[in-house]
């Protein structure tokens, strides 16, 4: 029940920003300063989610988490591929957990 409440709440607050301009706006009149601010929210969100949570991402081993983090960063920069980055990071962490 709690999860469905979350889903419906998230659906509502996700739909409102997506839909509102389609209903209310004819011309884009958002101030440029606000536009700049909003453009940085995804990067700020990812930064705030990675730090410091990534250190605790694998409760069984901080070393495995950090090893996977370094591998994921290198793969991300080398390949720009989401699946390879996720797979490589998880695989590296699994190796740390095995040995």
């Amino acid at each position, binding site marked *: 029940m709690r*999860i*469905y*409440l*979350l*889903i419906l*709440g*998230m*659906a*509502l*607050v*996700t*739909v409102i*920003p*997506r*839909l*509102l*301009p*389609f*209903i209310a*706006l004819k011309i*884009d009149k*958002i101030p440029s300063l606000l*536009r*700049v*601010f909003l*453009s*940085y*929210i*995804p*990067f*700020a*969100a*990812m*930064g*705030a*989610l*990675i*730090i*410091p*949570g990534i250190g605790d*991402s*694998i409760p*069984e081993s901080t070393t*495995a988490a950090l090893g*996977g*983090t370094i591998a*994921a*960063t290198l793969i*991300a920069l080398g390949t720009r*591929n*989401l*699946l390879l*980055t*996720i797979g490589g*990071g*998880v*695989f590296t*962490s*699994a190796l740390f*957990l095995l040995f």
Partner: protein
Amino acid sequence: MTSSREEFFQGITTGLPVFFSYLPVAITFGLLARTGELDIFQTVSFSALVFAGASQLIALNLLSLGVSIPEIIATTFLVNLRHLLMSASLITRIKETPLLPILGLGVTDESFAIASLKPAPVSAGFLGGLQITGYLGWVVGTAIGFGAGQILPEILRQAMGLAIYALFIALLAPAAIRSRTVFVVAIIAGGINWGLALIGLEQAGIRIVLGILGGAAIGTIMEHKGGIKN
């Protein structure tokens, strides 16, 4: 109107890269939801009703941290507020039709980017085809991920804890290398979150919201004063 069917199928074709780029993230979401406390109906409903990759992964992360439901919804609102601008920009480039508002439901970063690269006016049929293709990739990938999660060995399931962060790294690292401002914004936001945790602010949701606001404010100041462009 005679070519609206053609435009729809052109949208589907153009949407195939979106379909395939959503699959791994959706599979990751399905896997992580499975390793969390969600069942198959909750997991698929999540993707079918919310259709927002980053905030769904963030929600799983926050759920695992024990953050309250209202805080997660508030964080989701903040994370997805950028769609307000995308929709506002998009509306000026679409042909008017009575069905136009429905297209607002399918706005994502990826479909927006593709539609914005297409010469105006973009037809409703094209945009609809583009969005439906991405949507199918997201929902189908979620179900596949949930199914595959059931056959994972113990070590891999522990290591999967990194997957959500590896995804964020995959999205953030290339952008942070390209733009010093993006790099600083992410570090400041993370630093605020970490710093507030160190001084004893327990609610992760509030810390993250403050981190996001602080990071985005720094980015705005840097770009405004230095004229730094991405």
